[in-house]
């Protein structure tokens, strides 16, 4: 694959996309870990703060954000394994095929996990009336 993206100086091959996604998801995971420590810190403070924090985490933005977290973890670990295999000298000449496997597997796992994690109750909200069967 080879994409010429406007305003970039070099064409993107599948390896470029794999690397950019790896870096972005790696950064996102660092952000998540920091957030996680912050949350855990507040959970342990007092029963009131526990309840308040739990309420915040139940907010749809967090529930949907969790699906994003799943996507980041799944892609980063699968592509991390692709990079490790290459480092071990396994399949260096098949890295592009391995990238597409990473994408396909990530997609399947995210759909399966996403169906589990999605806050379906949101669809009971009046604004979705008529959209549901």
């Amino acid at each position, binding site marked *: 694959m080879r994409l010429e993206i406007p305003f970039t*100086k070099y064409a993107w091959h599948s390896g470029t996309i794999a690397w950019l996604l790896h870096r972005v998801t790696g950064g996102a995971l660092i952000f998540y870990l920091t957030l996680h420590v912050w949350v855990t810190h507040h959970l342990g403070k007092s029963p009131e703060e526990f309840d308040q924090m739990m309420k915040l985490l139940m907010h749809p933005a967090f529930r949907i954000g969790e699906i994003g977290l799943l996507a980041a973890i799944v892609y980063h670990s699968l592509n991390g394994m692709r990079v490790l295999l290459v480092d071990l000298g396994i399949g260096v000449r098949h890295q592009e095929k391995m990238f597409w496997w990473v994408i396909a597997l990530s997609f399947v796992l995210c759909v399966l996990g996403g169906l589990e994690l999605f806050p379906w109750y949101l669809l009971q909200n009046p604004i979705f009336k008529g959209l549901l069967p």
Partner: protein
Amino acid sequence: MKAILRVKRFDPEKDRKAYSQDYEIGVQEGTTILDGLLQVRGEQDGTLAFRRSCRSAICGSCAMMINKVAGLACYTQIQELRSQLITLEPLQGYSVIRDLVVDMEPFFAKLKAVMPYMVHKTPPSDREVPQSQEEHRLLAEAVTCILCGSCSASCPRYWHDENYLGPAALLKAYRFVLDSRDEAEEERLAIVNDPSGVFRCRKIFNCVEACPKKINPTEAITALSRKILTKKL
């Protein structure tokens, strides 16, 4: 058939900024980018600067950015690009001297840094040093490198880290480390096991896509990393 070459031009004596200039050229089956450039220089604009020598993909002097990918002008046929508008720019990651001509000095300095020559410590025999077919097979791909610099020019790490040795120099180190006749493995591994060496590679594989000789520098880089790590264990 016609095609447009959109060439990035810069003359430090006249221009304050680089600009693009379009040239229309005639294209037949087999016409290469280099043929197009020679056509332009011969018939339209004698001031256009670019490097070339062998025009048969062996001297390594005509590397440039062709439609945003580094490659050889003499080895890229216009029809295979499937576009009527072709952008030609100087190699990325090198400083521009004029138009498509870049300063290759830093590239060759990095090559020299990995000791790109055979080292003999034991007294030389008065005969040739033999090598078996299996021993040669390990080098067969790496020795075809023509030092065009396309791989290093394709590497984001190389653009952003002026100290990074880059795929071409690391491939050369690998070529000698794997050579059964060479006796400086330790020294060379120490050189590439440096903050600017093999462990800077981020496995982006642009070098593999760019190399006109279909060499796989990433394979060489990871093989060197494994040699360094297994030696330490």
